[in-house]
Structure formats: structure tokens, C-alpha cells
């Protein structure tokens, strides 16, 4: 279950607070005030950005892509990029 769950009342609940839904319904991209932009000409596909993303907001793909739905804009990827090909941009 990756969608928001509608609970009308006790009839929709297990007897204890048992959570079966996934937090991925929660699009944390809305927290962001700066956005990473990858310069793919410079990117070496080293995947350090993916490795150090606390929000799993960079895809494990070649090339890596920012998943804007979830990126909180922390800037770790830009800071860690060994070739400095990620820029944190405002207003995106």
C-alpha cells in the first residue's frame, strides 16, 4: 500500500496501531527550497550522490536522476559529488 489510507473509524482499524501502509505516499518534495540539478556532461556516474541520499531521492540508474517527488533539498549530493556536477538551485 503506497497510497494514503482512509480510516473512517474503528471498523477500519486493527486492534492495535499496526501500520501496513508505506510512507511513500508522503511526497516530501514539498519540503524543498533548493533543488539539485545534475550536469550530465560532467557526471561520471560514480553514484556517490545515490549512495549518500538520506531520502532515496536519487535513482539507482545510469545516469542517476533526482526524484523530485521526494527530494527534501538537503544538498548532501551536491556537497559529496567528487566532480561538483550537482548544483543546488533556488526557485524550482
Amino acid at each position, binding site marked *: 500500500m503506497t497510497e494514503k489510507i482512509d*480510516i473512517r*473509524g*474503528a471498523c477500519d*482499524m486493527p*486492534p*492495535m*496501531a*499496526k501500520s501496513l501502509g508505506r510512507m511513500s505516499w508522503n511526497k516530501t518534495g514539498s519540503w524543498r527550497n533548493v533543488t539539485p540539478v545534475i550536469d550530465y556532461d560532467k557526471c561520471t556516474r560514480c553514484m556517490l550522490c545515490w549512495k549518500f541520499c538520506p531520502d532515496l531521492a536519487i535513482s539507482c540508474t545510469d545516469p542517476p536522476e533526482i526524484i523530485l517527488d521526494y527530494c527534501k533539498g538537503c544538498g548532501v549530493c551536491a556537497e559529496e559529488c567528487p566532480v561538483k556536477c550537482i548544483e543546488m538551485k533556488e526557485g524550482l
Partner: protein
Amino acid sequence: MREVVTGNHTVSHAARVARAQVVSAYPITPQTQVVEKISEFVADGIMDAKFIKVESEHSAMVACIGASAAGARAFTATSAQGLALMHEVLHWAANARLPVVLANINRAMGPPWTIWTDQIDSLSQRDTGWMQFYADSNQDIFDSILISFKVAEQVLLPAMVVLEAFFLSHTAEPVDFPEQEEADRFLPPRVATHTVDPEHPAAFGGLTGPDHYYELKYMEHNAMLEAEGVIKRAAREYGDITGRYYKMADPYACEDADTVLVVSGGIASTAKDAVDEARAAGKKLGSLKIWAFRPFPREAVRELLAGKKRVAVVDRNISFGQEGIFCTEVKASLYGRDGAPPVLGFIAGLGGRDVKVRDLLAIAEAAEKADCPEFNWYGAKP
């Protein structure tokens, strides 16, 4: 099979016969013999269980919570300070809806240090969401533990079986143990739902806001109410196997009684002797043993006490500044009912002071006086 055993060893045998799978406990006088015997059972392979010898009662309850959450049948035993130390996680067990069973040996709370009995330790846990059963004999202890497991696993609430320090814990009495097959028929292996299981990932007990917390409490209360019917059914089924039928509120010579003593724990068996003695002297005395304290048998109390001239509640406990706790519960059950009798409260036997037949007769006599106060310290030397 009939054996002469102490109350404490009765508890150990009950855990064995109930096939508890994880036992976790910490020693405290007067409970120690319970865990010593279980250690032997487990070490000798008589009991197929894991015994986690924890460093505190808090961890004892937490380990039971973990084991129960994994789907195992979990058991522990404690007393007084130990139960108080568990308090936080007694709530956790109940709110997580885990059918842990605990035997509490009633011991008075310090300071001053004391090892003798009263009920303040267990009654202080009244609102944790645990069922509570007060035993009046070693046989009652054994039977209550088996019935508790069955009920707990059905309604998903933990249960506490309470027995008095020394008067029961260290007193040997004959106890009938059912054959293991009989016990297994009454209490088959736990069919656990909502377990912590890597094949079915889920989070349990995460942050819950006002939108949902309220409904969880609503369900917990309903489970406690539902427990009343489940207890009655389980007690009937158990009676059909053993011939011993337990009642949540158990009357003795109540029908035509003018005065009824409301009693619990070991005092309940003393009360029967007091009633017999009073009856022999031509007095219409009866007694009502409260076996199940949570859920409280409100309906039965109303029915059994309706129309009596007076009710004297004997409390081996006190809620300071109010009165005895059973007294409050009885009054709350009777309030506003037609034919509700006057209810007189008597504190007695705190810190292990013996409550004998003559004390109960004196209480009955005091209650019968027209000017008897509503609240009394029986036998206190001011």
C-alpha cells in the same frame, strides 16, 4: 492428579501445564519460588520454554511483550515493587494487545520495607488495561492461570492472577492438576494474529495522532467488556472438564442474607468460615467473593446485592483520601439502582495483618449497627 503444593509452586505448575513458551522473570520475595521451580522445569526439559533471566522486572515484562509480539505464549511472575517497576510496560502490553499472563503475589509497598501482603500493588495497576483475577486458594491460582491464558488470547488483553503473600504463596494445599491432554484440550496452542513476522512486515505502535488514538482506546475498552462473556464461557468450559466452576462474582449464602461481606483473595475463603459460624448462631450473613476485578462484574454485583439490608466491603487496600478500592467499585456498580443497599467500607489487613474469622464477624457486627460509619479502619490502634 492431586498434589500438596505451595501457592508459588502452583503458579509454576500452571505455567508448565499452560505450555508457556517464554518465561521472563526477576526474583523478588515472596515470588522467588515461582521462578526457581520454573527454572528447574525448563532445565530438566519438563517444560519446552525459554526462560530469560532478566536484570529487572521492567525487562521481564518487556521480554514477555517481545515474545508475545512474536506470537509465543509468554508468562511472568512478580510482586509489589517489581509490579510497580513494570507499571509503564504493563500499559505497553495492554495497549499493544498482547495476551501476556502474569502472576502477582500481593505484597505491600514500601517504605517501610515489608514483605507481607496487601493489594495496593495490584490495584494500583487497575487502569493499565489488564484483566485481574484474585485467587482465594492454591487451586484457584492454578485454575485462574489456565483460564486467563485462554481468555487473554481470545480478547487480546493481558491478564494478571493475584495471590496473597505467604497466606497463599507459601502455604501448601492440595491442588488438583488436570491431565496434560485435558489441559491441552481446554487451552490449545496460541493462534496468534498480528505478530512481528518478517514474512508480513508491519510497524506496531508507531506515532498515532488524535484522529486514531481515540478509536484504539474505544476498541480496548470494548475488548475488556467482551472479556466478560469470554470469561464466563471459558469458566463454564473449564468447569465441565474439572468440575470446578468459577464465577466473576461468587456468592456464598447470599440469597437470604441480610448482611453481605464483599471480599477478595484469601479473605474470601476465611469469609466462608465466618458465614458458617454466623449462620450457626442464627445470623443471616453471606459473602460475595470478587474473583474478576477487571473486567468488573457489575451486573452480577447488582443482582446479588439488590435488596440486601447492608453490604460491608472488606478491603485489604486503600486509595488514600478516598476509601477501599473494592468498596468504590461496588458503590459505582450499585449507584442509582433500585434496591441498592447501603455500602459500608472496612479497611483491614494492610501489610499482612491477619484477617481471621473473628475479625470478619466483628466487621459484620459493626456494619449491623445503625450508626455504623460509611468508612472504617477495622482494628487500627489510633
